[in-house]
């Protein structure tokens, strides 16, 4: 059977339980290309961004999560979790790339590029 396009493009890697991330909090996933920040909002949605603020590279995973945004711990830029873009006065000044993420049975699955499938 042909796999749908998105599962050819990504492998989904299980990076842990949703419950491992505090509500209104974040955790990071380490990769060879740098850290990825995984956020869990107050209304139970999960987002993933490259863990670098577009301003001065601050680790967004260490910021305060509020609404659908995170405040960077270095200089308080507010980054929209869905787009990775700064909001308010800093809108339009770059972005933290988003990573596809989904939840299945309480687990966080992160899109993971492998180039070609090994199965």
């Amino acid at each position, binding site marked *: 059977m042909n796999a749908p396009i998105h599962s050819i493009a990504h492998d989904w890697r299980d990076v842990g339980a949703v419950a491992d991330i505090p509500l209104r909090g974040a955790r990071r996933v380490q990769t060879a290309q740098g850290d990825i920040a995984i956020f869990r909002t*107050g209304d139970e949605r999960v987002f993933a961004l490259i863990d670098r603020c577009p301003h001065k590279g601050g680790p967004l995973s260490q910021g305060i999560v509020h609404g*659908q945004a995170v405040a960077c711990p270095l200089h308080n830029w507010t980054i929209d979790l869905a787009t990775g873009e700064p909001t308010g006065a800093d809108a339009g000044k770059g972005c933290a790339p988003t990573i596809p993420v989904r939840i299945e049975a309480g687990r966080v699955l992160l899109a993971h590029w492998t180039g070609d499938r090994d199965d």
Partner: protein
Amino acid sequence: MAREKLVVIGNGMAGCRAVQEVLKRDPDRYHITIFGAEPRVNYDRIMLSPVLAGEKTFADIVINDEAWYRGHGIVFHSGVAVSEIDRAAQVVRGVGGIEAPYDRVILAMGSDPIRLPLPGADLKGVVTFRDLDDVEAMIAAAKPGARAVVIGGGLLGIEAAYGLAKRGMSATVVHLMDVLMERQLDASASYLLTSALVDRGVETVLAGQSQEILGKDGRVSGLLLKDGRTLPCDILVMAVGIRPNAALARAAGLEVNRGAVVDDAMRTSDPQILAVGECTEHRGQCYGLVAPIWEMCRAAGETLTGQDGAYQGSSLSTRLKVSGVDVFSAGKFGGGEGCEDIVFRDAGRGVYKRVVIEDGKLAGAVLFGEASDGAWYFDLMRSGADVTDIRETLIFGQTITEGLRGLDPSAAVAAMADEAEICGCNGVCKGAITGAIVGQGLTSLDAVRAVTKASASCGTCTPLVEKLLGLTLGAAFKADTGPKPVCKCTAHGHEHVRRQIVAESLKSIPAVMQALGWTTPDGCSSCRPALNYYLLCAWPGDYRDDAQSRFVNERVHANIQKDGTYSVVPRMWGGLTSAAELRAIADVVDKFAIPTVKCTGGQRIDLLGVKKEDLPAVWSDLNAAGMVSGHAYGKALRTVKTCVGTDWCRFGTQDSTGLGVKLERFLWGAWTPAKLKLAVSGCPRNCAEATCKDIGVICVDSGYEIHIGGAAGLHIKGTEVLGKAATETETIEVIAAITQLYREEGWYLERIYKWMDRVGLERIRAIVMDDADARAALYQRFVHAQSFSQMDPWAERVADLRPNDFAPMAVLGAGVSAE
């Protein structure tokens, strides 16, 4: 022509509704046979909650009685479970040898409640909440005074707990998540629901992890939680979710994922066999609510009568069936990419409403306390209507929106009837406000508040009252800007917020946000840390600190640096250290390859460039050498800088080092509105630079001069002399009293010198120097608060470490794909 044979497996809401949909379109087409495993006629399963609560009887909830089956010539095998679908022979076989040949089949087996595999799950008195047998088992156990525990704080679990409480039991809901009904509610609505349930005899344990069901003589006696608590109970209800009941479909060789896979015409992988309801999976989605079932049954009815049945999936909305608790939720109630929130809170009536707008359309809503507009919002959502032009009034609901459509906001207010309620908290209508403005010559918001009480409580209606002032007075009205709001989430200033926290006994962040009408669902990075501090200060020992409302430095007890590493500063009491401490620091520096070691301005040593994952081990090693966190990262007591005083100095007048050490040991751990730095100098030469600290002491021959309000940062400011104390003991008491007064009155991030400018040095002096009783009371409150705060945060964290608090939650090898 001979009728075709239609066999329906499942006599629940879906199976019988599908039959009705077929009969409605072509009553003579099929000879119908229904198998039902439950030995009852078709009833409304979602009304079991009111039956449990004693608000309805079984007879009230029957949908189709026996006459219905007879009247349509339906063969009904009641209490007969189906054992096999033989697709080769086109026969459905029931337990006990009953066979029914078919041309078409409808699968409607519904779902099974999930039973947690906990030790003790097979004890008597452990039930699920799915059918009438479960309800009867619960009612049998529901003797007044008996205790019930419900695992699962979703819709069903809450309804079960409410029903049992209504029967006179004390009920406790144990929920794994921090938010009740998290698939339908946000944190604010969950907070209100928790309080409403308490009023109805239902307690809630959030973030409660079940470990074991305890029993006695084969019967349930309690639930043991992972945190060690035991909740005694006589009955335990598991309401943790449902699983599609698709075993029969799988055994028959049909395609099954989580549920039996169906297309838009509700056909399974065998086109002769259709499936509807909770046993299905449509476009990857399984449903557990009634509205999608009705839509599926309509499509199945069309397919079975020769039309093109098409089910497109459902938008979902939910209402909770707990009397007097009005809850509605639909769609993306929590927002999402590109969504905007409009929030309305009315503390007086316990109302919280949040509507979510996406691309100019309504994308979701959650309503608590007043849900009468739920259906209207749901219609707007499903129709995809553009709501841009009704945005201003959308949150006030259908009546106001429809009444004011097309008017600008001022005209809208002008057009409101005199009887229209403006202030929900105090029940003040428009006429009363305009009448008072004209009759008593009021010209300001404060005057209107004083006379009518409108906008005097939660403040949500302030913009409306201001518009009324403007409309009534014209140019004579100048809007009062009032105190600076805490942040964009609220119109209230810090002082009002602090006062109300105490006056209304508000003890959690959601409680403050609800009572004071916050306009965002969960605040922002400005107000959350402020509220967390205010609550901690107001309710020592009672308020549970919210780590997620603290800046990262206070969460990880270290200072974040520009490269994302941290700096660690152990406390050196009064600036004293020893060979053993220095040796331990040197060992830590070597062991963790810490790149920079520097002396701070506060007479201690800063270890810079520590990796986050190394923090717990660094603390552990420093703890082992007797050192504790220096709070160099906190809005808290930082250092007490000292000179060497009479111990060594030829000019020293008192033991300044000793006093500094005493002060630091007494004050450490205290959270304050902003950082707090002290110094003690042994003589007026002031080598400890006490006159540019928040609080300073200058020792003189006759005693101790106490100074406050210095700063040497953004602003340079010398201290003011507050007064003089004769003894060390008196000095310490005065300083504790100043600290406590500042803790209670300071605005978050307001240093002592700014607080002093705001409230006046004279006032501070009158309280802490001149009024011995007031000073003693402040001192006592400070001592009480300290009894909860002098735990070394490093030791606490090392002792209670969750695996991914500091280390990454996962490490991935190859690359990741960015969108």
